[in-house]
C-alpha cells in the first residue's frame, strides 16, 4: 500500500433551493493512496459528481454550501483555501485533474485542441510557447492519436467522441497530474471505444504512477478496473471494500440489489433478473433512518426506529457497510 494521497473526512455539501435543502453529499469519508485506482459507484442523482466537484471546489456557492468536513491532499486541507485561490488553481490541473463524461463541455469549442493543450501546459510548466506545443504533440502521441501534428490544429467538433476523450486524457498526462478523477469518462462511448479508451487510461496511470478515481454507474467497469470500491446511495456511502470482497461478497442490501439487477454477458443465462423494487428517494427531506428502507427486502424494525446506520467494519480488508442487517451477519 502506498502513501495516502487524498483523504476526505465527513464531507457534507447541500444545495439550498426553493424546494428545500438538497443533501447531495452527506457525511462521506474516503481515501485514495498513491498509485491506487478506486471507484465510486451508484445510480443517477446519488451525488457522485457533486462529491467530486466539491473536492475540487467547483460547485457554485450559492446554491451550494459546504457544511463540514475536510479534504486532505498530501496532508493539507484544501477546504482552507478558497475556490478561487491561487493554491486551488495550481492544484486543479497540475496536481488533480478531472475528466468528464462529455468532453465537449470541458473542451472549448472555439479553440483548437493544440491551443488548449498549449495553454494548460504553460499554466503548469515553465516552458516557452514552442516547447509547450511540442509537449502537446507528445501528449497526443501518448494517447495514441494518429497524426498528432495535424490533430493539434483540429477543433474539438472535428473529432469523434472517443478522440475527444483521449485529448482530455492527454491534458492530464501533459500536466503530470498526481490524481485523475474520471467522472463517467466513457459512458457516452460505444463499448469497443469504451474499452480502448479505458485500457489506455489505465496503462497511462500505471506508467505515470498516477492515482485514479473512477466515477460511474457501471458495475462491470469497476469490476474490471478498480482496486477498491465505494458504493453511494442518496448522498451517503453505504458500502466500501476491495473490489473482490465487495463484488463477490456484497454486504449491503443495496449493493447486492444492484449486482443482481444487471444482466451478465458471462456465465449461464439468468432466467429472471432480481431488480430492486421502487425507486431512489429525493434528496430533499430525507428521513432520519436508512434511506434504503422503503426498497429494502432485509429491513427490520430497528431500521425504521434507529438512527441512520453508520459505516462500520464488517469483514477483512477494511470491508465496511452501513446497515443494521448486513448480509451474512456481523
Amino acid at each position, binding site marked *: 500500500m502506498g502513501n495516502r494521497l487524498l483523504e476526505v473526512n465527513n464531507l457534507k455539501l447541500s444545495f439550498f433551493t426553493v424546494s428545500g435543502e438538497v443533501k447531495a453529499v452527506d457525511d462521506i469519508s474516503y481515501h485514495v493512496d498513491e498509485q491506487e485506482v478506486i471507484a465510486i459507484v451508484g445510480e443517477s442523482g446519488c451525488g457522485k459528481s457533486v462529491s467530486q466537484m466539491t473536492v475540487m471546489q467547483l460547485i457554485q456557492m450559492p446554491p451550494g454550501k459546504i457544511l463540514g468536513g475536510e479534504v486532505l491532499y498530501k496532508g493539507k486541507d484544501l477546504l482552507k483555501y478558497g475556490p478561487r485561490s491561487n493554491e486551488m488553481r495550481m492544484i486543479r490541473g497540475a496536481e488533480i485533474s478531472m475528466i468528464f463524461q462529455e468532453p465537449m463541455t470541458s473542451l472549448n469549442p472555439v479553440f483548437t485542441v493544440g491551443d488548449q493543450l498549449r495553454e494548460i501546459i504553460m499554466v503548469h510548466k515553465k516552458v516557452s510557447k514552442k516547447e509547450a506545443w511540442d509537449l502537446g504533440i507528445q501528449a497526443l502521441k501518448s494517447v495514441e492519436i494518429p497524426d498528432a501534428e495535424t490533430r493539434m490544429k483540429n477543433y474539438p467538433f472535428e473529432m469523434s467522441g*472517443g*478522440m475527444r476523450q483521449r485529448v482530455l486524457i492527454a491534458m492530464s498526462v501533459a500536466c503530470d497530474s498526481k490524481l485523475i478523477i474520471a467522472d463517467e469518462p466513457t459512458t457516452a462511448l460505444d463499448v469497443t471505444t469504451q*474499452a480502448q479508451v479505458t485500457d489506455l487510461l489505465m496503462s497511462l496511470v500505471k506508467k505515470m504512477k498516477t492515482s485514479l478515481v473512477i466515477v460511474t454507474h457501471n458495475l462491470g467497469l469497476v469490476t474490471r478496473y478498480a482496486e477498491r470500491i465505494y458504493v453511494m446511495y442518496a448522498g451517503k456511502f453505504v458500502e466500501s471494500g476491495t*473490489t473482490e470482497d465487495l463484488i463477490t461478497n456484497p454486504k449491503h442490501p443495496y449493493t447486492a440489489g444492484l449486482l443482481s439487477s444487471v444482466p451478465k*454477458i*458471462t456465465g449461464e443465462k439468468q432466467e429472471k*433478473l*432480481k*431488480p430492486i423494487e421502487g425507486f431512489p428517494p429525493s434528496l430533499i427531506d430525507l428521513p432520519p433512518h436508512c434511506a434504503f428502507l422503503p426498497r429494502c427486502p432485509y429491513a427490520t424494525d430497528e431500521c425504521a426506529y434507529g438512527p441512520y446506520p453508520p459505516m462500520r467494519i464488517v469483514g477483512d480488508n477494511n470491508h465496511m457497510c452501513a446497515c443494521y442487517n448486513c448480509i451474512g451477519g456481523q
Partner: protein
Amino acid sequence: MAVSSLSKPILKVENLAMYFPLKKKLGSRERKYVKAVDDISFEVQEGETFGLVGESGCGKTTTGKCILRALDPTDGKVYYKGRDIAKIPIKSIKPIRRELQLIFQDPYGSLDPRQSVYSILKEAIVSDHKFHTRKEINNRVEELLNLVELDPDIGYRYPHEMSGGQRQRLGIARALACSPHLLVCDEPVSALDVSIQAQIINLFKELQKKLGTTYVYIAHDLAVVRHIANRIGVMYLGKLVEVMDSEDIYDNPRHPYTKALISAVPTTDYYIEKKRERIILKGEVPSPINAPSGCPFHPRCVYATGICKKEMPNFKDIGKGHMVACHNL
C-alpha cells in the same frame, strides 16, 4: 432456441437496404450515399425476441424503421406474415400498422405533456376501434395499467410528474393498447438506472409470456440483449455480420467483430472477469459514406486476408441456423 424449419416466421427481412442520399458537392457529378443498411437478411419467429446489437451508427434504428415502414427502404423485402410490405402503397399498410408498434428509448419526446396518462391511453385505445363505450375504454385503460404494473391512480398524472421508469411503463402500455403482434423496441431501457432497467426488462419478458407478442429488441448493451433475446443479430457498418441463438453469443461467437465486441463488455463475475481474454480493436469505425470494400470489418480485423479486401463474404449457415459473414472461419 434453434429455428425449426416448420415454424413460420412472422417477419422475414430479405436483402434489405436503406441508402440516404447526401447533398451533391458543387461541381461533382457523382451522388454519394450513406449506406445505413446494406443488404441484410434475417427472420423472426412468432412469439420470440430477436435482438439487434451493434455500435452507434451501425444501422439498428434504420432497420427498425424500415420494418415498420416508417422509412421506405431503398431495396429488399420485408415480409410480415408472409406479405411483402416494403413496397406496397402506404394506404394499404394502414390496417396492419396497428399490429406493428414502436417503443422508444425515452417516450417523453413522443408523449404530449398536456395530456394526462388516462387521455394518452384513451387516444391509443380509440384508434383501434375495438372499444367504444366509456365503460369499455375505462376498463381497457385499467387493464393496460395493470399489465405494465402501474398504479391505476397514475391515470390522473402528467408525463413530467412521472419517473423515467414509470414513463417507460406508460410508453409500453400505449404501444400495447392496440394489441400489437410485433413490437420494435429501440433502446427501451438505456436511459434508465440499472435497478429500474431490471424492472422493465422483467416486464417485457412477462408481457411476452402473457400476450405472445413478438419483439425486435434493438440495443447496444449486449448483456441486456443476451438476457432478453432468443436470437441475436450483430450489425457492423450497415451489414449483418452474424446471427445466432443467444446462448451462442458468449459461448460460441464466430465473427471476429462479435468476439471483439463481447470481450469489450465487462462483467461483474469477478473471477471470470480477471481471466477473460481481451481483444482490443485498433482504430475507429469507418464512415458509412466511404465504407471499406469487401468485408466492412477488414481494416480492423486481425484475421483479414487478401480476399477480405475485395469481396463481401457470403452470409452462410455454419449449422443450426448460426449465420456468419466471414471469409476465414
